[in-house]
């Protein structure tokens, strides 16, 4: 076992030496692995916008032209990452949760290449950093708008996978919808995909048939908005990207992921030698999460309320998970005025009180 590993390391090291020699005098090569197509108009699109920001910021000093779309999470990711590392990439951004184990496995074999894994928690070797955004901060804002805007008092949520990041979003949306509208109920549909327009449209359709008139989504395509557009009175929000083509309604606002500043910072740090392993989790305050333009379909006072909330989250005066809050089963979670700690949030696996249904186990 040990011998095998040594051999593998030696073989890879040799390859790396060649690859390194070939590209030593060239620009720093930064590479991206995407889970969907750039044309998804959501998650992957925004990561690619971040890549373009890197090109804009560094010009000839950085070669950020390498990326791979639609990489399945698992064995294929490991091969793609190895190919990139062999191909001379010096920093590789792996932009989906499912790349966690492959990223760490490949990183162990290429200690000279920096790996940046989005939304994961494993940093097994010194060259792996993780980064994520506090999307739940944006969810608090859209939840507020949802609570104010619903006429049927039924809000629907299209979940992707039941992982903590998504559950944070569901809880944050519900808490803030409930705060402004005590009669609100929320149904969650699990799509088990990050990007599948057909499935997402089906999920939206099912929710609308149940009488839902505000749809929140944690999947990446515009399909739920397209579905909402077919039924008058149903609204939704842009997810990951602005999705401005559905303005002013059904898209009344959006949570926008803004990865550019982080990518520019990390690539810049690698260029000037200040790069260090770290775990980044920034939100509205850090500029990683932005609230897309709130359209005229939303009454002015609701818009003002939502913007004030976003501002208070941004300047740190308000935390979306502030007690008193109970868990779904009625047990106490946060006492009056208590704020959730990052550890609990990062591993969140429970609904707050009032949400119906179970998290798939």
């Amino acid at each position, binding site marked *: *076992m040990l011998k*095998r*590993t040594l*051999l*593998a390391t030696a*073989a*890879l090291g040799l*390859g790396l030496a*060649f690859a390194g020699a070939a590209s030593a005098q060239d620009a720093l090569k930064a*590479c991206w692995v995407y889970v969907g*197509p*750039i044309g998804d108009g959501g998650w992957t699109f925004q990561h690619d916008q971040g890549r373009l920001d890197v090109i804009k910021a560094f010009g000839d000093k950085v070669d950020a*032209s*390498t*990326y*791979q*779309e*639609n990489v*399945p*999470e*698992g*064995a*294929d990711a*490991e*091969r*793609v990452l*190895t*190919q*990139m590392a*062999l*191909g001379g990439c010096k920093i590789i951004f792996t932009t989906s*949760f*499912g790349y966690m*184990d492959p990223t760490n*496995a490949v990183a162990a074999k290429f200690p000279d290449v920096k790996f940046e894994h989005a939304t994961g*928690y494993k940093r097994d070797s010194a060259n792996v950093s993780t980064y994520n955004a506090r999307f739940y901060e944006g969810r608090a804002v859209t939840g507020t708008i949802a609570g104010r805007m619903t006429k049927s008092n039924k809000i629907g949520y299209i979940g992707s*996978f*039941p*992982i*903590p990041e998504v559950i944070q979003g569901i809880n944050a949306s519900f808490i803030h919808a409930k705060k402004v509208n005590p009669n609100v109920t929320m149904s969650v549909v699990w799509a*088990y*995909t990050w990007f599948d327009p057909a499935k997402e449209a089906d999920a939206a359709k099912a929710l609308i048939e149940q009488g839902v008139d505000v749809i929140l989504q944690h999947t990446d395509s515009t399909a739920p908005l397209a579905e909402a557009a077919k039924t008058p009175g149903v609204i939704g929000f842009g997810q990951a990207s602005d999705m401005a083509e559905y303005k002013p309604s059904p898209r009344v606002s959006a949570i926008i992921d803004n990865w550019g500043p982080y990518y520019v910072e990390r690539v810049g740090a690698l260029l000037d030698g200040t790069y260090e392993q770290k775990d980044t989790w920034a939100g509205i305050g850090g500029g990683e999460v932005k609230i897309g333009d709130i359209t005229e379909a939303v009454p002015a006072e609701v818009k003002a309320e939502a913007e004030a909330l976003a501002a208070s989250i941004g300047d740190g005066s308000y935390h979306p998970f502030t007690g008193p809050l109970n868990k779904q089963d009625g047990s106490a979670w946060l006492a009056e005025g208590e704020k959730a700690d990052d550890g609990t949030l*990062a*591993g*969140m*696996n429970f609904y707050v009180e009032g949400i119906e249904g179970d998290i*798939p*186990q």
Partner: protein
Amino acid sequence: MFRLEKRPTPSRFWTGATPVVAVILTMLAGGLMFGVLGKNPFEVIRTIFWDPLFGEFAWYLRGQLLVKAGPLILIAVGLSLGFRAGIWNIGAEGQYIMGAIFGASVGLAVFPTENRLIYPVMIAAGAFGGWVWAMIPAILKTRFNTNEILVSLMLVYVAQSILAMAALGFLRNPEGAGFPGSRNFNSYPAASNPELIAGTGMHWGVVAAFITVIAAYVLLQKHLLGFQIKLSGQAPRAARFHGVNPTALVVLCMGISGALAGLAGLFEVTGPAGQISIDFNTGYGFTAIIVAFLGRLNPLGILLAGLLMALTYIGGEMASTNLGLPSAAIQAFQGMLLFFLLAVDVLSNYRVRMSMKGTA
């Protein structure tokens, strides 16, 4: 005018030549598509077909070719037996998933015990899982005359839901901080399926695929069962007069293909994939159907077809990363391969004739 005339027997020449012609036509049409996309077609074709084998990183990619081809070949050989007998198991993807779940469950149940017997038992459990999943359509067909195509296909979606349940529930890594996904087998030596020789990509699944190819070849050429399978496909009535029991044949063919798909799943989950995750399956079970037909339902042909298919995946990825091709273009390219194969296939059963009298 051209006219198609049915041949009395399929042309041996065209049966062999079809895959080659299809590959050449795919290169031409694909090259045209890449050209339209503004890329140099020769460079793209070279990146897909040449670089993984002989390029700068071939030492790594040749091994990856085996990793990718292994499960395809293993599943496709099993499917081809049924396809030859006219038994259509379309649900290998589901059997692949169930094999992985059964095998992984055995391994995780005894974690962290170290014992040489664990992996063989997991292999048996993997084959059993795939077999059980294939038995459902087989028994429904023999008992109630249901359509095995539909039942086996629908069971893929059931298997996917069970996979999600496993990743989120009963197989979830208890040390995973609430995230879905099982423990990683690569850090559990007794239950893992590592590379046997570093850098070659050879793991037990690839070994099993090669053994299966040889076994299937011998079965079809030398064994009475092989003869019965072929006869049932070509002349079901004659087969019955020959004493072939159609019920037994369905159960047997579905069982073999299910068990092999289950094995593929087990080797994949304990090796290259490493863990049970919600989207562990990436379509090997479906792609294997293409591989089976591309290989003319012949074990040796399937071996080559599996490697070719793996080549288009890995080379396609390289073309996509290095030349900036959209991944959809690569998928279209792979689709063309099947399209041309089926189109050219007409020539093995039909002859093209010039007709003097105009339209027939």
